[in-house]
Structures are given as structure tokens and as C-alpha cells.
């Protein structure tokens, strides 16, 4: 049994792709009843996103859809029709949160902007995910994390070493979306608490640009203060110019061990012993931090030679008792078998919609009471239309009418 801190909270989600749906997924992990509204014929456009990074996905095992939609129910409503809008208002009356990433002009045209939803339910929290924010001259412009989170924010520029001919791409699908979705979920949690305390329902906004700016806030503050912008250095093997206990060291099989022992005090003997050169810890060039910094090149050479003598897996296990800070440069393959990740229940399983093997998903990043998340697979498009409407007290005759008019599916 997992703790459901959002038990009893009902979220009405009118959103597509990953960023804003990911907020609904996090709230669903936490126990909220998240009702996802999808177009009755097309569904969420994400369902058609079947080619990603050269990988073709099975529509019944659609990991890019599962990740931001696990634990939800799907109701098919055509929001371009007045009947469909009526159905939405009926649902809004019984929900705590309205969550959307539709553009302002679409919210106006299809009448689910804040004033329309608040007319149905004055106490509903209205949460918007956007590309560039709900104010300013570009509020009606859409975008993805590749454009707003990665490119426009300055992240791509700083991630890319200046020696490279072009900017590094985001590389990980929905990377900015997934980070930003958690920010929206955090905002909604605070809004629910505020409403509980004061009775006031707020509007809230998170944009992909603001999510990127926050994630980069330490360096942005530095640039504002000093005018100095730092960029990624070119990748290479060996220690940093000043501190040899900082750097990437290549293993005999081309794996990489990252050392990040910013303050070597107390860790010098441990590292040299672990790499099989214990005598270096007694060498006056390396035995205390200031000397180590003075002789960084010589120490780096010793470390490079030592790391190159054993394979990645050897170091991955052997360095576990090293007292300083380090990490194996793992792939996501290795994360899936990382004993710490598994010990902290970071991977959750849901049933496959095809009846096959379960799908492995990453849980939301907050763990409650040390318990594993229990959730369900993402819904099929419009899977729960009648069930949700009946739960909300809508008579079957009315459901039939709406169905006949094409307002719901």
C-alpha cells in the first residue's frame, strides 16, 4: 500500500504532448484522480508520435505516451462543439484543478479559458503550462522543450564547447518537459494548500522557458553579476588543470570514471590506494592538497595510467569504498540495473496494453514514507468516457445524446 498524498484531489487535464501531461502523471503517482480529456477521434497528438530518435514505437507499448500519462483516465470530448464544452463544464464543477497547455487563442475559441472554467467552478485552481509564459508579446506562440527549454534559454549554448561547429542537441526526448512537468505539479500542490488555508483558488503558470531558467539559475546569476559566461569544455581524459581529483578518466574498455572530489583533504590516501598506487600518497608532491594542486599534471598522469589498466565494471565496483566523490559514467541501460536506483524504487511497472510483459516506467521524483509507487498503465483514448460521466452523476440518456451528436466518444 503506497501513501497517496493527493487522494481525493480531482484534476481535469486538457493537455497534449509531455510537459503539462507530465504534471498530471506526477499528481497521479501521488494519488490524484486525473481525468485526461482527449479529442474523440484523434486523441492526444502524442499518441501519433511513434518515431523518436530513430526508434519506432508500438502504439500499444508507447513509452513516450506511458511516461506522462500513467495512472490517468481518458475521456473523449470534442471541445470545439458547444455540447462538448457543456460536458467539460459538468466535469469542471467536480474537479479541484484544471490543467492545460492549450494556447490562449484556442482556450478562448473553445471556451475553456480561466473565465469559462471559473464560471462553472469558481473554486477551481487553473494551471497553465506554456512555451514562453502567459504574458508578453509571444504568449500565443507554442513550442517544445527542444525549442524553449533547450535552445532559447541559453542551455544549448552553454552545454556546447565553443570548439564544436554547432550546438549540442537536447539528446534526451522530453528532458525539459519532464523537469518542467514536476515544477507544475509542485505549483499545483502549493496552490491546493493555499486554497485549503485561505479559500482562494489561484491561477498558476509554468513555462518551458522559466523551467530552463530556473535549472540554469546558478550560472544565470553569475552572468548577471560578473558578465562572465562559462561553457562546457571539450570532453577529454585526465584531471582538471588545478585539481587532478576532478576529471574524467578512461578505463581499459573505453568506459569513463568521473572524479569530482572538489576538496581532496582526507581523500588523497584513499584514492591512491584504490587505484593501486598507495606510495603516491606518501609522495610530498601529492600528500597534501596544496602540493597536489601544484603538481596536478603529474598526479593526473598517474591516475590516467591506473584507470586505463582495468575495465569499467572493475572500477564501478572497486571504487564503492573510495571515500571521495566520484561516479561511473553510466548509460540508462546501467541505471535500470543500478542497485541504488532499484533500492529506492525509482522504477515502477505497469501492465502492457497489449497483454504482454509489463512496462518499466520511472516514478515521480518524490517518495512518500519510503514507499514504492503503485500506479496503472496509461489509458486508451476515450477509455473511460462513460464510466467517468456516470460517476459524475450524468444520466445515460444524456450520455447517449452527447454520443449521438459527436460531442463525446
Amino acid at each position, binding site marked *: 500500500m503506497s501513501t497517496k498524498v493527493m487522494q481525493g484531489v480531482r484534476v481535469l487535464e486538457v493537455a497534449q504532448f509531455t510537459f503539462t501531461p507530465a504534471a498530471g502523471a506526477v499528481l497521479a503517482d501521488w494519488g490524484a484522480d486525473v481525468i485526461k480529456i482527449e479529442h474523440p*477521434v484523434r*486523441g*492526444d497528438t502524442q*499518441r*501519433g*508520435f511513434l518515431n523518436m*530518435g530513430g526508434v519506432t514505437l508500438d502504439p500499444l507499448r508507447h513509452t513516450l505516451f506511458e511516461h506522462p500519462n500513467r495512472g490517468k483516465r481518458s475521456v473523449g470530448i470534442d471541445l470545439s462543439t458547444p455540447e462538448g464544452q457543456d460536458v467539460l463544464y459538468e466535469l469542471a464543477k467536480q474537479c479541484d484543478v484544471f490543467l492545460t497547455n492549450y494556447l490562449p487563442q484556442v482556450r478562448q475559441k473553445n471556451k475553456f479559458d480561466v473565465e469559462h472554467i471559473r464560471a462553472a467552478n469558481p473554486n477551481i485552481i487553473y494551471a497553465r503550462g506554456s512555451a514562453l509564459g502567459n504574458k508578453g508579446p509571444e504568449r500565443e506562440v507554442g513550442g517544445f522543450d527542444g525549442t524553449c527549454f533547450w535552445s532559447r534559454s541559453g542551455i544549448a549554448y552553454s552545454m556546447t564547447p565553443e570548439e564544436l561547429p554547432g550546438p549540442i542537441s537536447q539528446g534526451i526526448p522530453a528532458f525539459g518537459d519532464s523537469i518542467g512537468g514536476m515544477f507544475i505539479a509542485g505549483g499545483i500542490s502549493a496552490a491546493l494548500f493555499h486554497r485549503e488555508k485561505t479559500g482562494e483558488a489561484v491561477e498558476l503558470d509554468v513555462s518551458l522557458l522559466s523551467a530552463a531558467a530556473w535549472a540554469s539559475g546558478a550560472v544565470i546569476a553569475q552572468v548577471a553579476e560578473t558578465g562572465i559566461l562559462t561553457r562546457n569544455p571539450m570532453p577529454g581524459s585526465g584531471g582538471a588543470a588545478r585539481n587532478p581529483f576532478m576529471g574524467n578518466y578512461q578505463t581499459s574498455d573505453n568506459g569513463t570514471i568521473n572524479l569530482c572530489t572538489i576538496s581532496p583533504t582526507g581523500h588523497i590516501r584513499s584514492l591512491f590506494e584504490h587505484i593501486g598506487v598507495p606510495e603516491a600518497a606518501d609522495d610530498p608532491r601529492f600528500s597534501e592538497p596544496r602540493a597536489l594542486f601544484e603538481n596536478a599534471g603529474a598526479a593526473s598522469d598517474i591516475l590516467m595510467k591506473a584507470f586505463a589498466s582495468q575495465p569499467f565494471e572493475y572500477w564501478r565496483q572497486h571504487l564503492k569504498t573510495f571515500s571521495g566523490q566520484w561516479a561511473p559514467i553510466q548509460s540508462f541501460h546501467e541505471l535500470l540495473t543500478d542497485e541504488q536506483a532499484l533500492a529506492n524504487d525509482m522504477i515502477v511497472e505497469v501492465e502492457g496494453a497489449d497483454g504482454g510483459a509489463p512496462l518499466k516506467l520511472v516514478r515521480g521524483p518524490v517518495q512518500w514514507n519510503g514507499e514504492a509507487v503503485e500506479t496503472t498503465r496509461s489509458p*486508451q483514448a476515450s477509455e473511460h468516457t462513460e464510466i467517468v460521466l456516470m460517476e459524475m452523476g450524468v444520466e445515460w440518456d444524456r450520455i447517449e445524446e452527447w454520443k449521438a451528436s459527436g460531442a463525446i466518444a
Partner: protein
Amino acid sequence: MEGQRRDRLSAHPNKTHAREDKEPEMKPGTRLKSAACDTEVMVIRAADGQIECGGAPMGEAKPADPAPLAADFSAGTLMGKRYVDTDGKYELLCVKPGKGSLAVDGQALVVKDAKPLPASD
């Protein structure tokens, strides 16, 4: 086997309430179970035909002895999918998957799938 089928059909509430001249439609929201596999469906829309799974009529109760799974109706059902006929008279929502496939009076139903807009990176 035939006797069991008739028993189950006659025990069906919609059938017992049938007027002699015209049988009413299956009540929406009714849950039907397959006699041949694990499949269960919720009736969303129905006319007066016989709803079948795995080649055998479906009923609100599961028979004590399972019906054989007909080879022509063994493509399987998928959880959460809607199954419809071509005339739009029937719509069944699969609430428990199984090995049989759905039909009305021997005519196979087809999956009503979302037709998402194409997207790619």
C-alpha cells in the same frame, strides 16, 4: 452444451423482459462475460443481435463449463479498447482482456482506434 447456452440466454434479464413482437436493445452499461475466455465487456451501444466472444454467446454470468474457443474468433481482446460494428449499432468496451475475439451474430467487430495526427522527431 446447446442446452446450457439456451439456459444462459433465457436467464438474461433483457431477454426475459422481451415483448413478443420485438426484443428491446441490451441495456447500456451491462457487463457481459465471455463463455470461452477471460474477456469481459461493458455494453456501450447495442441492438438486438447476439453478442459473442470466442464464437460463443456472452452473458452476464459465466457458465460453469467453458465453451470451446472457436479458431475463427481467437484473435484476442485488448483491455480498454472499444469494439464496434461497421453500421455503428454496437459498441463494446473491453474491461478485461481474453483470448477470444468479439462478434455479433457471427460478424467480427473491429477495434475503434484513435486516429492520431502524424508526429515524428
